[in-house]
């Protein structure tokens, strides 16, 4: 059949072209060309550091997917880490796009602020407004930041670096990224990974510290139900906090301003469209960008240093001290207060919203199944977000 002819004709043609290419190219040093190409593969251009970093990227993805440690961040960070450890060969830079996104949104820290906008739109400050004094616990837990800052100085970091490391203790990813991007961008990979990893590890880090500092009886305290909060109070709250921040700590205005702007559009009730987009499309898009951009600072030359180990150790200390400070102030408040206070709500002051509040709830229920303190713990929990944003502002104005 003539079909077969066409078919064979095609194959013969293909092979003759391929052979011809071989033949012709032979005359122009084909070995050289193939050698050139081999020299442009990754294998021949990557140091051991890149392989280690790719493994770390895989580990982060594994932690995100299998252990469900902050997967929204760790999966993009891990992927970004893998991609950004691809070698640059000649003029071809495989991380060009990520570098571009980095310049656009981390150098001037746009992404963490837009995420804070979304966090604000997702946060209900009602439990805090219903029981204002629990806000103190969110202040106390920031002690971990400054304690760690001093520790970092002792370990040889300079003031800017030490501030960026201390802020890990604030247990807020966007705040950590914002401050590190401003003060010590080369540490961004380490501090961001530490912040998100430890936030995911809160259920492992906090309970032993809490149990060390409290008796079973204290942990089982039942708290009075929260009073309802009016829509008006919820709307006025974010506006008041922005203005307070402008008057007291202007350097914290970017963080507090965006957080409270997000909360205002949430509570306003008349701009559902904006609140929805801040809580969904916008925060999700920015999370993707932010994650892969953090990978940019996980290139071997930035990340594979002794400093990274130090930062990881200091980070866990920051979390621990923060937790302890919160619990201790809660115990003191419990003694001074007329209404019963369960000291476990203190540990939620580190923020790590809403994980730390859930830990408080879980530990309380272990001690006394009829103690439901989740909503009470949400007060210090969200206050801790404000507290560490203020702390970041202070550090920025001192060392920025």
């Amino acid at each position, binding site marked *: 059949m003539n079909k077969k002819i066409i078919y064979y004709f095609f194959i013969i043609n293909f092979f003759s072209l391929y052979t011809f290419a071989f033949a012709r190219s032979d005359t122009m040093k084909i070995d050289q060309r193939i050698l050139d190409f081999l020299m442009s593969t990754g294998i021949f251009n990557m140091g051991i550091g890149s392989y280690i970093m790719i493994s770390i990227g895989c580990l982060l993805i594994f932690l995100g997917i299998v252990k469900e440690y902050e997967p929204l961040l760790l999966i993009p960070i891990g992927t970004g880490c893998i991609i950004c450890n691809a070698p640059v060969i000649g003029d071809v830079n495989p991380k060009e796009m990520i570098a571009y996104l980095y310049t656009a949104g981390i150098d001037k820290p746009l992404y963490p602020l837009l995420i804070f906008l979304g966090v604000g739109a997702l946060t209900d400050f009602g439990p805090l407004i219903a029981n204002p004094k629990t*806000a103190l616990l969110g*202040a106390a837990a920031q002690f971990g930041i400054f304690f760690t800052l*001093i520790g970092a100085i*002792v370990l040889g970091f300079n*003031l800017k670096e030490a501030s960026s490391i201390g802020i890990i203790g604030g247990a807020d990813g966007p705040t950590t990224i914002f401050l590190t991007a401003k003060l010590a961008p080369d540490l961004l990979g380490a501090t961001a990974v530490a912040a998100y990893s430890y936030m995911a590890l809160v259920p492992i880090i906090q309970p032993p510290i809490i149990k060390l500092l409290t008796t079973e009886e204290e942990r089982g305290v039942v708290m009075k139900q929260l009073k309802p909060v009016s829509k008006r109070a919820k709307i006025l709250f974010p506006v*008041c*906090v922005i203005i307070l921040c402008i008057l007291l700590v202007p350097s914290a205005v970017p963080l507090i301003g965006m957080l409270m702007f997000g909360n205002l559009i949430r509570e306003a009730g008349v701009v559902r469209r904006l609140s929805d987009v801040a809580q969904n499309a916008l925060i999700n898009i920015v999370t993707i960008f932010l994650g892969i951009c953090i990978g940019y600072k996980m290139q071997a030359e930035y990340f594979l240093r002794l400093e990274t180990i130090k930062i990881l150790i200091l980070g866990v200390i920051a979390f621990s001290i923060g937790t302890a400070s919160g619990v201790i102030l809660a115990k003191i408040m419990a003694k001074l207060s007329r209404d019963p206070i369960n000291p476990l709500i203190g540990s939620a002051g580190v923020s790590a919203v809403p994980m730390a509040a859930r830990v408080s709830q879980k530990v309380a229920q272990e001690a006394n199944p009829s103690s439901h303190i989740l909503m009470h713990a949400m007060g210090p929990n969200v206050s801790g977000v404000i*507290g560490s944003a203020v702390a970041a502002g*202070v550090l920025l104005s*001192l060392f920025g």
Partner: protein
Amino acid sequence: MLKSGLVSMLIGMSVVFIFIIIMIFLMFILGLIDKRFPPEKTDEIVIQKTISLPGKDANNQKEKIAAITAALIHYRNRIK
């Protein structure tokens, strides 16, 4: 440098506490306003809200559909 660190702790913790204490003060005022001028009962009846005013966002829709589905199954069983 350690000195600077200590000072930053001093200032930092002080500012954080001052900020939070003023914030608490503001929240108390908001609480007083609520007591003085209790908001009119403008909230829609909860049940009606649950059934007929689904939020635009996906999560609420999800709950909404789950609720409707549950009701549906309930009535299906009633029919059987």
